[in-house]
């Protein structure tokens, strides 16, 4: 039957198959007061032509990074997306919002995710990656739960300094109603975690130390030192990273990370109103059975040919029920596919060049802004990648609105988020990120607007 229509005849056929006379009878187990007794409050139907005009008119009110200049940071960035990404992911064989359920029948999709896993491992310095989770914040929380399962410790988790405040919120939502204590170590005067305070907070009940690098303020953390403090108490280090930064920075896996997570939006995914994005999670091989989400494995079929399957499914809900490693047993298929195409297109050299451009342009912008009267770049001595904190001579929110009128977007203002311990008085503070897409002319224009 067609799924697009429900004609009176089809409706009757379905009802009689179920064995009832009417929709009302079908729904009679739902108490009357809970049933809607009127039509939905929708405007009248439109013809295709009218609908298209209406939607065009609505769409024309939106403006995005294509028509404006985007210097916004805070976890989602305006990176370049090679045209091949849209071209390949838009193919009918791939283009679905749905993760193909009879997965072994979708060898192309499975192979793409297998390649994704391989490239994520290469990027992070980890041994195994899942086929993706929903987004960066969820990945941090899932990694933390995974660390609890792996260590058998549930007493405490430690957040090291400037983790994205929204990730912190997601984590608190996950563990808020459990006995796990979330300790948040403040940021020190250099904009990275206070290592002395961190060392004092990690104890024998600590499952994980969570650190973001580059951190939410744009600063590079000393991952190796944090790893030593963490491992001294046999805790696990969870590192939330920016995939593009891996073009320049040492890989978290090479600096002692046990689980690496990331928001994968930078890998070929448009800003698109804040989602859907991509949750990256990779870890050491020892933890593979504690890992949430899907894993694609390689095997041979009965004729000896190379093929791909969903592996280690016994960890998942449909088999392990309440003992599943996570309530997530799907993945962000289409977004992971975009990331795969992006990474394949860029290659190690492309990553390096992109990261270098971000670094140089961000530092040029920071230097120019620092020279303006009344402006300070916070933590100016601390190494940064593509993002930094500006202290403005006025309220950050006012400044953001002023610059936006000229078609340039900066921010977000730090006051928009829950406070990060150690960061007092954020009224005049805001983030600015500079990606490889920004030109010298655009940066100079921004500097002029700030004057």
């Amino acid at each position: 039957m067609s799924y697009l229509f429900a004609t009176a005849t089809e409706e009757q056929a379905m009802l009689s198959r179920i064995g009832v006379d009417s929709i009302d009878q079908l729904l009679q187990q739902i108490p009357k007061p809970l049933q809607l007794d009127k039509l939905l409050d929708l405007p009248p139907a439109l013809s295709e032509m009218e609908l298209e005009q209406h939607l065009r008119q609505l769409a024309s009110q939106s403006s995005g990074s294509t028509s404006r200049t985007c210097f916004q940071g805070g976890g989602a960035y305006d990176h370049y997306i090679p045209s091949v990404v849209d071209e390949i992911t838009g193919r009918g064989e791939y283009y679905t919002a749905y993760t193909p359920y009879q997965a072994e029948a979708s060898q192309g999709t499975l192979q793409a995710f297998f390649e994704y896993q391989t490239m994520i491992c290469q990027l992070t310095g980890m041994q195994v990656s899942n086929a993706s989770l929903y987004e960066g914040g969820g990945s941090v929380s899932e990694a933390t739960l995974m660390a609890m399962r792996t260590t058998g410790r549930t007493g405490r988790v430690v957040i090291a300094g400037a983790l994205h405040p929204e990730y912190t919120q997601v984590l608190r939502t996950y563990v808020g109603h459990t006995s796990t204590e979330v300790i948040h170590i403040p940021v020190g005067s250099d904009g990275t975690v206070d290592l002395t305070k961190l060392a004092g907070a990690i104890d024998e009940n600590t499952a994980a130390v969570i650190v973001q690098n580059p951190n939410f303020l744009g600063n590079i953390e000393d991952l190796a030192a944090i790893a030593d403090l963490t491992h001294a108490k046999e805790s696990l280090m969870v590192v939330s990273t920016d995939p593009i930064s891996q073009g320049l920075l040492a890989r978290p896996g090479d600096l002692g990370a046990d689980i690496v997570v990331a928001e994968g939006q930078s890998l070929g995914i448009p800003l698109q109103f804040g989602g859907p994005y991509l949750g990256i999670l990779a870890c050491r091989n020892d933890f593979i059975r504690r890992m949430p989400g899907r894993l694609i494995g390689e095997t041979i079929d009965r004729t000896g040919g190379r093929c791909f399957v969903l592996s280690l499914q016994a960890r998942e809900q449909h088999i392990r029920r309440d003992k599943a490693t996570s309530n997530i047993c799907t993945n962000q298929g289409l977004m992971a596919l975009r990331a795969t195409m992006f990474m394949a297109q860029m290659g190690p050299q492309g990553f390096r060049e992109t990261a270098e451009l971000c670094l140089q342009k961000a530092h040029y912008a920071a230097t120019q802004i620092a020279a303006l009267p009344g402006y300070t770049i916070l933590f100016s001595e601390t190494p940064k990648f593509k993002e930094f904190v500006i202290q403005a001579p006025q309220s950050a929110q006012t400044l953001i609105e002023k610059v936006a009128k000229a078609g340039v977007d900066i921010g977000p203002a730090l006051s928009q988020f829950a406070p990060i311990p150690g960061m007092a008085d954020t009224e005049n503070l805001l983030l600015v990120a500079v990606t490889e897409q920004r030109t010298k002319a655009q940066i100079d224009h921004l500097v002029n607007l700030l004057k």
Partner: protein
Amino acid sequence: MDLAALKYAKTHEWVAIEGDVATVGITDFAVQLLSDLVYIDLPKPGKALKVGESCGEVESVKAVSDVYAPLAGVVTETNPNLGDNTEPLSSDPFGNGWLIKMKVSDLSGLDQLLDRASYEKHCESEAH
């Protein structure tokens, strides 16, 4: 291993007792039921167990089954040859495939377990 000398739990664990030390495994019946084994997860030595408490998992390609403590006590040893390698359990569940040894805190728990004849009856009833 003399199967008649062992005690059995309805959840398909077997127990061999020497003094107050019990060796625990799962029966051939359970292993056949699970079919293709892929992984065995065992408790850490030192873990205190109550009767009927889940103390490990045996994973097959399409299912996971809990291992329940047949007696109360403390885990003293786990089989070092098991983990990703499941072959000893598949081929020799009553010998090389043993799972854990435990120091039993209450030997009267043995009276709650089945002898071989009762266990075989129990398996027959489960198979139907």
